[in-house]
């Protein structure tokens, strides 16, 4: 039934541009063509399998050609990937690319933009609202992206905006874990209405058929809906967003309900910015949602059973030019909703604070994060420091970074320290040395050493070389940040932007 509704919405939307084609379209009436794109090639000599019994090094060549074409109100794009392994039998199970080899048309799309109608066919990423009902994105932690293969359309009529979509998507982590592709079907719709006095209301509904992890079983089913409301700069100072969602999941004939609630209020008064958030998630996680964390963007959060508020204060609070920020959150589980895990409450107190300063040639950022699971006796800490000193007339930069994550489980500890020292010279490139130490009390200590060179022979070309090992995670070097999977070996990279 839901799919019929979505199909009807798509048909209604498709009829709209016939009426709207003579409207004002911004200047987008140029009907000539333009082609642009990127070509990224990486070659890896990957040693990560060496730790596995019988594991050996293997080489991997990966080419990603991205071509985009603009014409009138339309654009089209393809991302053609080529993967070649020296010996597919040796490929580390942690390498998600192992599921593919040879040529793969990873992404392909045609997009039509106009007022009041937009549509895209082919592949796309998407999210509804704040990600509570739908979120399909690249998984940066593993560097693997699998978009929806289908279609989406948006119709804007004055204060009303309506979006509908449907398609198929594969869940890469799950596929990798079971060594076979999981293909799920998703469809959904979202609407938003702008009201007078800078208020808005909206909502979304999503249905999903998720391929069971058990062979020869019926698909799992998910139905989730949300309503939202809020206001922009109410009274000139206050932004508000509230969202409530309910979910019904059926797995192997058993149906469970859950809910998600989120509230955010923010205001800037003079040099001080305040952000207050409240979250209430119960049995709320499924493969394709990602609700707000109500906490630091750098930390991991579970969304299945948690509720509580947090308050963040930030800005040039002391009026000294230094940006200061601090946050405090007090979260707990739902004690009275019959948790299968027998939870009797699991309070977590979380706070973090930091500063950012730019003074002449010096840039400094430092922060400290702490999470204390009171009932479990587990603590987490995260320390970050990043220093840059400009030199050579403002074109050189000496940088030092330190990132330390400590987890104390009571009976065991885990400590991952990352350090880097780098030098960059604009516009030529950068040299970075990295060191990381992973100390797990139950396993032992592992050291990671690595060196990276990036060179820009011209503005549109990057040549990079990394030799060594890295535990994976957020890596900032050479003036760029990216999230990388664990690696050990040599990686050469060529990127051309045209």
């Amino acid at each position, binding site marked *: 039934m839901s799919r019929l509704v979505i199909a009807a919405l798509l048909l209604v939307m498709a009829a709209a541009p016939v009426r709207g084609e003579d409207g004002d379209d911004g200047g987008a009436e140029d009907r000539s063509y333009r082609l642009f794109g990127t070509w990224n090639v990486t070659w890896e000599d990957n040693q990560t399998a060496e730790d596995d019994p019988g594991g050996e090094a293997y080489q991997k060549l990966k080419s990603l050609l991205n071509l985009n074409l603009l014409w009138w109100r339309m654009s089209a794009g393809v991302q053609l990937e080529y993967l070649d392994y020296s010996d597919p039998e040796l490929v580390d199970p942690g390498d998600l690319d192992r599921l593919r080899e040879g040529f793969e048309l990873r992404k392909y799309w045609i997009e039509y933009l106009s007022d009041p109608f937009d549509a895209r066919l082919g592949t796309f990423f998407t999210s509804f609202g704040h990600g509570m009902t739908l979120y399909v994105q690249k998984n940066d932690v593993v560097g693997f992206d699998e978009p929806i293969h289908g279609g989406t359309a948006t119709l804007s009529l004055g204060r009303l905006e309506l979006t509908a979509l449907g398609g198929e998507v594969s869940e890469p982590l799950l596929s990798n874990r079971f060594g076979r592709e999981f293909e799920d079907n998703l469809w959904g719709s979202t609407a938003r209405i702008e009201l007078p006095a800078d208020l808005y209301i909206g909502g979304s509904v999503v249905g999903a058929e998720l391929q069971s992890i058990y062979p020869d079983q019926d698909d799992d089913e998910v139905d989730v809906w949300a309503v939202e409301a809020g206001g922009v700069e109410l009274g000139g100072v206050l932004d508000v967003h509230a969202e409530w969602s309910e979910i019904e999941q059926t797995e192997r004939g058993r149906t469970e309900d859950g809910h998600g609630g989120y509230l955010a209020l923010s205001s800037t008064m003079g040099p001080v910015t305040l952000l207050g958030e409240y979250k209430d998630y119960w049995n709320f996680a499924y493969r394709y949602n990602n609700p707000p964390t109500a906490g630091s963007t750098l930390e991991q959060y579970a969304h299945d059973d948690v509720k509580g508020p947090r308050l963040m204060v930030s800005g040039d609070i002391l009026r000294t030019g230094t940006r200061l920020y601090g946050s405090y959150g007090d979260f707990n589980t739902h004690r009275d909703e019959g948790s299968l895990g027998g939870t009797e409450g699991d309070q977590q107190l979380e706070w973090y604070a930091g500063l950012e300063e730019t003074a002449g040639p010096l840039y400094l950022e430092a922060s400290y994060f702490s999470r204390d699971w009171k009932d479990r006796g587990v603590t987490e800490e995260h320390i970050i420091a990043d220093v840059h000193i400009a030199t050579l007339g403002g074109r050189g930069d000496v940088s030092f970074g330190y990132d330390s994550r400590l987890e104390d489980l009571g009976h065991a500890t885990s400590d991952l320290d990352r350090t880097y020292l780098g030098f960059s010279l604009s516009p030529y490139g950068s040299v970075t040395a990295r060191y990381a130490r992973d100390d797990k009390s139950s396993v032992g200590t592992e050291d990671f050493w690595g060196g990276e060179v990036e060179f820009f022979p011209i503005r549109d070309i990057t040549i990079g070389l990394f030799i060594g090992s890295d535990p994976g995670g957020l890596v900032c070097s050479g003036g760029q940040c*990216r999230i990388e999977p664990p690696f050990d070996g040599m990686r050469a990279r060529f990127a051309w932007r045209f």
Partner: protein
Amino acid sequence: MGDRDALASAPCRRAGRAAVIGFLLLGLAAAAGAGQQDFKLKDMDGNAFRLADHRGEVVYVTFWATWCVPCRRELPLLESMYAELKDRGLLVIGVNTDPAANKSKIKPFVNQYKFSFPTVLDPDNNVHDTYNPTRELPYGLLIDREGNLHKTYAGYRTGDEELLREDILKLLGDAEGAAGAAAGEPGAAQDE
């Protein structure tokens, strides 16, 4: 599920791919002209922003995220450049790429820095992915007054802002100022 894949998914994907490839091949044959860059996103308050509406301006689009340190170092420099050159036709657009879950955090973040240039949201990363499939941040696009993609800028290293400034001044039609800046004469352009 297996039957569904065999009967519906594979032909559907093949047809979609064939359609897009055919469209691209047609376009490649005629790709000598000069279409203009375009995308549509929402700003932090939910208002629509369309790049094509700004034809006639020199536009610098910078993709950034709240967790990206080089982005935080570059954005205040772009704000200074925007404040100085907007009256001569420069528009800076900040495209935030944080996921949808972070939407409520972005406006407070921008307010702290008091950025006056427009900030739009690309939570799905469809626009970012079009220009930069490997998604390193920051990533910049310089677009001329006709809507052509003039240059791209991967990352931010200390001093890159001077090169960007030269490129922008050239597109603004300030060859003399650009030459002065290139010769290491800070202030030459703005004093003109």
